[in-house]
């Protein structure tokens, strides 16, 4: 499977899709795509600095999986988390402002692209140490369980994290204590520049869960409906108290690992093969074939997204800088007088 092109397309999930829901899924995926294209442009202009890891190509994973989560569920994500943050409903402006380093950013400009936080939406980062978010997700789930809340913690991580000890420890502990964690492995076939078969002796990642008695499933991560369907079933099992579940979402990033990556490790042809399964293109074609959308709908989505992205940039441009006097604020919780 690895190294080459996408797997042969699976038969589409025969999900009865209502038009409104389909348009919403499409809108969210297009928003992520255009938001990130704008981010790349702003990076080359020097407005966004540091590291910028684009999600383009993987939109179906964030959008599809987020449909299964309630407002009370928690999310732990990685440094490639723009898609999850947008799909969770964090305003694009506060994300863009964060990447500008502005005080009106979702983390007050302290985290940048890799560290989005929004506690009101239970979005607990933005973790840039590969594998480091998994134990935190286990703990969030433990807190829910101990306090009798029927919530799920969704934990996103990449195929690279599967090589980390924290992945194995976290699956074991979550299973041992039957905690409500939904492990979402975004397998984009590369740990930065190291191809899956060059870092995993067993590249069929969903099999790792078997060693911890965790049920698992591999999903076509380019098919938003397949992702939604699998995540709904998995989340329902987790919410029921069956313990954790692992989904391996097979996807591909169309852009470089980060803006600094010259992509010496993969062939252009491989990227082109995957682009033929662009999640937005696939879904649009499918909706068209069922006469669920037409050019007017697509135009309306693009227009709405363009406005959202423009407003996000305006919000970021208009934001202020955190005062230097606040440099050490919130290293510790301020003492109440």
């Amino acid at each position: 499977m690895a190294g080459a092109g996408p797997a042969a397309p699976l038969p589409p999930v025969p999900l009865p899709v209502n038009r409104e829901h389909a348009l919403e899924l499409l809108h969210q995926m297009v928003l992520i795509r255009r938001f990130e294209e704008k981010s790349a442009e702003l990076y080359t202009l020097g407005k966004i600095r540091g590291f910028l890891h684009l999600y383009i190509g993987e939109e179906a994973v964030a959008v599809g999986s987020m449909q299964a989560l309630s407002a009370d569920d928690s999310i732990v994500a990685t440094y490639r988390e723009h898609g999850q943050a947008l799909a969770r409903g964090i305003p694009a402006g506060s994300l863009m402002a964060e990447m500008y380093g502005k005080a009106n950013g979702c983390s007050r400009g302290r985290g940048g692209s890799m560290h989005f936080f929004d506690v009101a939406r239970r979005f607990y980062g933005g973790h840039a140490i590969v594998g480091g978010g998994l134990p935190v997700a286990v703990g969030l789930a433990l807190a829910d369980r101990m306090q009798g809340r029927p919530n799920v913690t969704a934990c996103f991580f990449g195929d690279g994290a599967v090589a980390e000890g924290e992945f194995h420890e976290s699956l074991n502990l979550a299973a041992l204590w039957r905690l409500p964690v939904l492990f979402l492995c975004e397998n984009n076939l590369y740990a930065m520049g190291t191809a899956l078969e060059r870092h995993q002796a067993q590249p069929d990642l969903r099999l790792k869960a078997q060693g911890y008695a965790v049920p698992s499933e591999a999903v076509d991560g380019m098919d938003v409906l397949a992702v939604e369907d699998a995540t709904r079933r998995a989340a329902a099992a987790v919410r029921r108290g069956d313990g954790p579940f692992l989904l391996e979402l097979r996807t591909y990033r169309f852009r470089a690992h980060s803006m600094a990556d010259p992509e010496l490790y993969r062939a252009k042809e491989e990227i082109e093969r995957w682009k033929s399964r662009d999640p937005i293109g696939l879904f649009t074609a499918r909706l068209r074939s069922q006469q669920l959308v037409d050019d007017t709908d697509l135009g309306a989505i693009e227009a709405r997204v363009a406005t959202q992205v423009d407003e996000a940039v305006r919000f970021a441009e208009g934001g202020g800088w955190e005062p230097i006097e606040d440099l050490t604020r919130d290293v510790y919780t301020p003492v109440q007088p």
Partner: protein
Amino acid sequence: MIKMSYREAVRSALREALRSDPRVFLMGEDVGRYGGCFKVSHGLLEEFGPERVRDTPLSESTFLGAGIGAALGGMRPIVEIMTVNFSLLAMDQIVNNAATLRHMSGGQLSVPLVVRMATGGGRQVAAQHSHSLEGWYAHIPGIKVVVPATPADARGLLLAALREPDPVFVFEHSALYGVDGEVDEAAAPEEIGRAAVRRVGDAVSLITYGGCVGKALQAADQLATEGIAAEVLDLRSLRPLDTSAILASVAKTHRAVIVDEGWRTCSLAAEVSAQIMEGAFYSLDAPVGRVCSAEVPMPYARHMEDAALPQVAGIIGAVRETLGSHG
């Protein structure tokens, strides 16, 4: 006031916290059925049940990280790590998450996590169970570090740690668990960040913490027989450091010897020495002395381990040098 061991004092605080706050729970390796590898949590599983006294797999990084997540989720976890050497397996969660999440989230998150672990040498358990790395932890902004030296502080500082909104690391010197002291079980929690003068004197300040406080007091006793009145200052908290108490003592005695079980280079003792230089340079009548562990992995054989650790004779020697080096 009742007499109890350091171990019993920690247990007293754990029991009080588990009884009074339903958000509190204890987790770690062998804290439940085994009763704690130092017998600190003995009996707590029977009293509070397996939901609140949780035996974990040997996964330091993940159960510490789970403590962080549980704290984010509204609980008050107490994580026990057997020894400071094992805590290195959890360093990612400690440094990259526990210490950073509040600041990096722009103040949205707080991590009210308490981590307890044994530290220190003197038990002939060699180089992977005996080190004193609390000075490393004191280097990290975003966490607090306390080092109780007495049974009363073992109880009081642990209860204080549980009132903090941010991560607190409690280092319990393993040689102290069997030491008895007077404890007032009705006492209010201590305040983190306050040093305590354990013996008053005016000739030299012995600045120390944790397992070395007793050695410094013994040295002061012997020096007193020669008419040398050493003051013993127990730091109790390494982050924050009670700088004003350090400077006040040195302003009175004009001489300081720092006793620290960590290795000398880049040690907590180095930080205290720097603070004295910055804040009390013109009060000093002699260079600041340091008594630290020898810069070797801790050896097993008794005579070699004794030679590696700060000892009473070494403290007395350093005091004499300080007193003799001027006028």
